[in-house]
């Protein structure tokens, strides 16, 4: 609408001054956008975290791109992202639909479902570490040898343990999103379907699922982009081990920067992280066919 380009002074037409947005913008520029540019800059330097920052050309990038651990971290990240999406999306969708109906007992179940929302990742990781102990945990308690494995010490199993714990922590959040989405579907649609003689399964596939399109996009975007931030949980649960089995990209970045004191290489990893996050988010929006803002409005 505006023809008075970029004016931050109060325009003649009614409408608030842009200055109202200035404090939020200032915070965001200072602690998100400038660091975002900063991480790109630092990826061309070498810095041990304490001393001087020296321009160092492409050496950090060469280090990072030739290091097999980087490739492994990308693979681990992709695996965790894929499996946790495959596990979480259907469970939270079904639980959301299930709890959206109003029976008393479902409401009572839902009270407990959402308890993991309150726990910090550190708490969840510590609890599962104890629970999965082969000698003093769940397996020994139930007397089931299958459960009494060295879950966190076996490099083949550990990835799936991480996926499971992530699901335990985050499914409740996505269930809540779906529950809200389902509750906004007009009841008349189901009434019409019932008159037409559609069964529960037909109703689910022909009404619930299409109506939840934008909820699915929102939840999936949060799930996929969010899996680039599973840092806390994995850091406390496995520390990235055993070996490099659960060393996903953000963790690799942290360990490279703050443990191996190579901030240049860590910054290069940070840039990769940003590029992946952005690409995934754009891809998901494309799949949705609308930009995020519009989808949010239409989904309402």
């Amino acid at each position, binding site marked *: 609408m505006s023809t008075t380009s970029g004016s931050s002074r109060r325009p003649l037409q009614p409408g608030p001054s*842009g200055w109202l947005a200035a404090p939020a913008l200032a915070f965001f520029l200072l602690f998100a956008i400038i660091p975002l540019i900063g991480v790109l800059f630092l990826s061309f330097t070498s810095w041990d975290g304490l001393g001087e920052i020296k321009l160092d050309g492409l050496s950090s990038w060469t280090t990072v791109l030739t290091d097999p651990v980087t490739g492994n971290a990308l693979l681990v990240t992709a695996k965790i992202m894929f499996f946790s999406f495959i596990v979480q999306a259907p469970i939270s969708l079904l639980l959301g639909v299930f709890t959206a109906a109003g029976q008393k007992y479902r409401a009572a179940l839902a009270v407990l479902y959402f308890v993991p929302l309150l726990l910090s990742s550190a708490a969840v990781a510590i609890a599962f570490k104890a629970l999965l102990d082969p000698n003093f945990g769940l397996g020994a308690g139930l007397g089931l040898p299958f459960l009494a494995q060295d879950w966190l010490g076996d490099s083949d199993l550990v990835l799936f343990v991480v996926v499971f714990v992530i699901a335990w922590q985050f499914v409740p959040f996505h269930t809540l999103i779906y529950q809200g989405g389902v509750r906004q579907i007009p009841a008349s649609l189901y009434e019409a379907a019932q008159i037409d003689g559609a069964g529960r399964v037909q109703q689910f596939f022909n009404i619930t699922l299409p109506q939840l399109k934008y909820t699915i996009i929102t939840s999936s975007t949060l799930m996929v982009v969010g899996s680039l931030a599973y840092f806390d949980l994995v850091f406390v649960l496995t520390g990235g081990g055993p070996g490099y089995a659960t060393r996903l990209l953000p963790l690799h970045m942290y360990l490279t920067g703050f443990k191996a004191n190579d901030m240049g290489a860590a910054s290069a990893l940070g840039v990769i992280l940003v590029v992946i996050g952005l690409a995934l988010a754009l891809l998901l929006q494309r799949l949705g066919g609308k930009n995020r803002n519009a989808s949010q409005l239409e989904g309402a």
Partner: protein
Amino acid sequence: MASLTQLPVPPSAPARPAASPRPRTKGPGRTRPNFLGGLGGWLWLAIIIVPVYYVVVTSLKNQAGFFTSNPMMPPAEPTLENYKLVLENDFAKYFANSLIVTVGSVIPALLVSFMAAYAIVRGKSRFLNWTNNLFLLGLAIPLHATIIPIYWMITRAHMYDTLLALILPSIAFAIPISVLILSNFMRDVPNELFESMRLDGCSDWAMMWRLALPMTRPAVVTVGIYNALGVWNGFLFPLILTQSPETRVLPLSLWTFQGEFSVNIPAVLAAVVLATLPLLVVYVIARRQLLSGLTAGFSK
């Protein structure tokens, strides 16, 4: 702010019914019981409950009991020794730190985000459009990737190992999602209300506090809760930006307890329970508000 919110509210259109339950739809399958859904629901409940049960039961055991008794059985002689040990280890100080950081970031974040959302929804300048797009971009970027430049900035500003070092970036990171949710709600406030206030000679500043704020209060609550949970449970910033016990927050204290008491699992789990308890109390008291707020925030 309290007095501002008590100013007369223009009568009319009810705010988005986020705090009050929406009329529930007839979910699919009202006609006959949903056995499969019920089965899945109970199964998930077991998955949620077992770890919680294990943590509580184990935290009540003494060392000898932990090594000799069945891990899934309640202790023969429950003891509160572990809790005493944790409380004696500066738990109250960590709790206070968490509280300061959470309140100190959530209130300013709400304030600046609300003002920005108001300007974005009501204003029409290119600057505001650009600001909004920048915030939307922030949603798609894993901001964790920016920790290295943030670390540099905080150390250069001599704020390393202070609570302010945690507060400032937390405010910035809360802004994108807060502006998104608040502006989505604010778009539903009928334009006529603003017009009539404008005719009465109200300034934008007054309209923002007297009309927009009361009308979007459920969204403000949602955003406040969501950010508070995120900051309270945050791990990465404390890990990187603080160091001494004086600035330790609860999630980080769990991690350090785990290091200090690595042989005393019941004590570590008692710390987990203690760190979760405050949120659990809040959940029990304000569950309805909390869940309906979160649901409405994300299903929009």
